[in-house]
């Protein structure tokens, strides 16, 4: 298992054009100067790129020059984007399509972060933190990020986000924006781990859920040996249609609860299905993550 899903130049160009969405993705509503948020200093203007939030367009300047310019603020402090990639066996098993999709999404997000002046680090985890790379600060480092993500991750067992987050947020001087790329299947409490990380100083946490339809609706009918990809668990069963539907309902219920819990702690949940072409699915996810501002 190695290599990223291929990212074509056309996709990268569209990604660059939409880098304005990345700001919101990594900083959330703070960038809009939400009430109670720390003051930000106006730094200047830059030309408008398609994809930039139209709320940052300086309309007075447009009235004078009849060209679009957006306002650029200097953040009160530098926020580091930490991309947390789930490299547990449930992601890397089989053809590792989920991991490769998550890695490609990580590369695209790193590109957005570096283009919007966010330092980037990439961490991979399973039952513990497996490795950390970075930080990368310049857009010139995009190739290095991609090379790192194309490497086969260290082998790990189980999934425990709390074990991975702890060294990443503990004792950090700089604010951190956490973006987790995972399939969401984790027996250990995931939401409480995020809540703990936010409490320890993480500025923001978002979760990109890589969705494999087979995980949500596994075919169980007939005689099946169900195996836990992340442990020694096995069950020999004979399922009929009713049992299969009950299993599907239980999985759907799990993710419904997860979404509600993440919303409760202000951590957005983005969905990236593996069944669709990656580039199209990623751009759709990006648009859903940073909706158009109010007119």
């Amino acid at each position, binding site marked *: 298992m190695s290599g990223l899903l291929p990212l074509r130049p056309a996709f990268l160009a569209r990604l660059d054009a939409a880098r304005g969405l990345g700001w919101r993705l990594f900083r959330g509503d703070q960038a809009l100067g939400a009430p109670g948020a720390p003051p930000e200093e106006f730094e200047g203007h830059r030309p408008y790129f398609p994809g930039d939030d139209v709320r940052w367009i300086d309309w007075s300047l447009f009235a004078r020059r009849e060209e679009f310019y957006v306002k650029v603020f200097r953040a009160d402090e530098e926020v580091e984007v930490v991309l947390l990639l789930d490299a547990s066996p449930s992601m890397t098993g089989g053809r590792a399509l989920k991991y490769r999709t998550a890695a490609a999404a990580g590369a695209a997000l790193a590109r957005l972060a570096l283009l919007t002046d966010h330092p980037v680090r990439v961490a991979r985890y399973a039952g513990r933190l497996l490795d950390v790379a970075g930080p990368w600060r310049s857009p010139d480092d995009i190739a290095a990020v991609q090379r790192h993500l194309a490497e086969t991750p260290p082998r790990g067992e189980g999934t425990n986000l709390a074990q991975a987050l702890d060294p990443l947020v503990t004792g950090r001087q700089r604010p951190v924006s956490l973006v987790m790329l995972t399939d969401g299947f984790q027996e250990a409490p995931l939401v409480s781990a995020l809540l703990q990380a936010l409490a320890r100083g993480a500025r923001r946490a978002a979760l990109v859920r890589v969705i494999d339809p087979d995980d949500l609706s596994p075919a169980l009918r*007939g*005689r099946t040996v169900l195996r836990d990809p992340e442990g020694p668990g096995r*069950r020999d*069963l004979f399922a009929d249609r009713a049992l299969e539907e*009950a299993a599907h309902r*239980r999985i759907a219920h799990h993710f419904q609860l997860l979404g509600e819990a993440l919303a409760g702690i202000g951590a957005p949940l983005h969905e990236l299905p593996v069944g669709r072409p990656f580039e199209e699915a990623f751009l759709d996810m990006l648009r859903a993550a940073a909706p158009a501002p109010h007119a």
Partner: protein
Amino acid sequence: MGFTSPSGLLLLAAVPIAALLLLRRLRRRERPAAAFFLLRDLVDALALLPRSFLWRQRLRVALFLLALTCAALAAGGLVLGNADDPPQRVVIVLDHLALRRDAEGRPADWQRVTEAAAGLARNLRTDDRVLVVRPDTGLLGGGPLQPRQAATLIAGLRPSALPSDTAATMDLLALLERIHAPSLVAVVTPSPVRWRPHIADRGPAWRILPVPSAAAGTNHAILDAEVRPDLMRAGRVALFFRVGSLGEPGPATDLGLTVTLDGREIARRSFRLAPGETRAEVFPDLETGAGLLEVALSPTDAFPDDNHFLTPVRERVTVPALLVTEENPPLEAALRALPGLELTVARASAGVPGSKAVVRVYDGVAPPGLAGNLLVVAPPEGMHGIGYRGDLPFPSVVRADTTHFLLQGVSLANLRVRRLLSYEVPSGLEVLASADGRPLIAAGRMGGKSRLVLLAFDPRDTEWVYDPSFPILVANIAAWLAESPEGSRSSFVVGDFLPQDLAGDVRGIVDSAGGRPPAPPGGWGGFRFPAPGRWRIEGRTSQSSGEVVVNLLDESVSASQAPQPPDRPAAPPPPPPAPRPFRAEARNLFLAAALVLLLLEQLVAPPLRAGRLP
């Protein structure tokens, strides 16, 4: 084992495919599930397999596949047995000698014949088909029967007094052979000799199953008899007999032959005869006069019907005859020697005279018409209805139908003809003898009534006139031409039909000798005389009433199978043919098996749920 339908093989081929699909569905599939931790509890609560699951599931699969196989076999019409041995069609001919009766007057062989025939039917396979034929009444049951049906039919049959009509039976069997192509035609009979000549060259499918005759013993019989008053002077007859001993090998027996006329003994002859021997006896010149002549062979044996011969002897009637010839001494001499003819000779050169003669002989000249009964000898330019095609000098090959009554006692072996006149013979005449493919002697009816015999050679052109066969031929021809119409015939043999011109005017026929029941009104194709003796025909008029005599004179009936010495127990009926391998259509059996297997499959289906689903 075979299939009545080829689709059965296709269905059987589909069984392994169904088995593969089923096993694939039941194959244990291992799959990693990222949601394992979510489903673990659910599975533990509801879907864990019981310990007996595995063997019950395997048993269920096996039962289902067996049921599927049974259904395929049933759909294919499986028949059990040897696939190389197809179902047979068997014709059973149920022959018995109605004449042979036991002390109580019942047919002696009936039970043995029916038991043997029913045993044969019962030993056939269920998919075989049987046709039952009785030589006295024809085809029974209307067509092919299942063996069990045929056995029941045969067991329920009753003997009849009708005689067996071998010729008609052979015609029927030939028809059945063309229609049904039987693989076996089995004639179950106590008298194999009657059937052997008929089926000798029929092929291996035709078999005789001999049944020992219970009433048979050492049997002496009058096998043949001929009474010739025409060869003798008025009031005298010549008697020719052939008698035989038809028993098993053993000591010779003293026999006597007694001739009586109206109960008065007029001649007696004694001789010894060993079993298997036959002997000719001739009474050359008996003075009889008119009356009922009876010949008895003594001592009486177990089968008396062939020990007697009856014939009426009538007053001698002289028949007027006319010979028209230029000069033919051998022919004229042969005709003059016949005592029953009152011969008048006319010269052809003087013109053909008119005459009231019953027998008219035209030698070297064509008759003026077809009146009377005619013997025409070598007309040089043919005659009415018979065209002349030319001469054939010295024809070499002579072929003759020696069984024809006109050629009885006649040998054509020495016949060498210097000149044969070739004629176009019409369809009404039968060619009795031919030379090089051309008619030599032809006889028949012309114009529907007149009897005509045509000789295509001049007797003067052959040395054969000095052979004894020539006067015998002339005598035979003259006797036939002088014979009175068939309606007055009064002597028959067993199995003869009552002539049609009598049958239409007959109210009933009874056995005038007594001891036999009245004859049935009719049999297969009309009334046939079933037994020898004197039979009274009761007609509506005095002319159509009268008495006839019936003789047996059938060596095949007299010669019965395997006579049993009295001190030996009767042999059991012959063993039926070796049973062939069991072969039965098993459709219903396999259908029932498939249903039972499916029921069992449901019973052994393992329980899959232990509780309610959330």
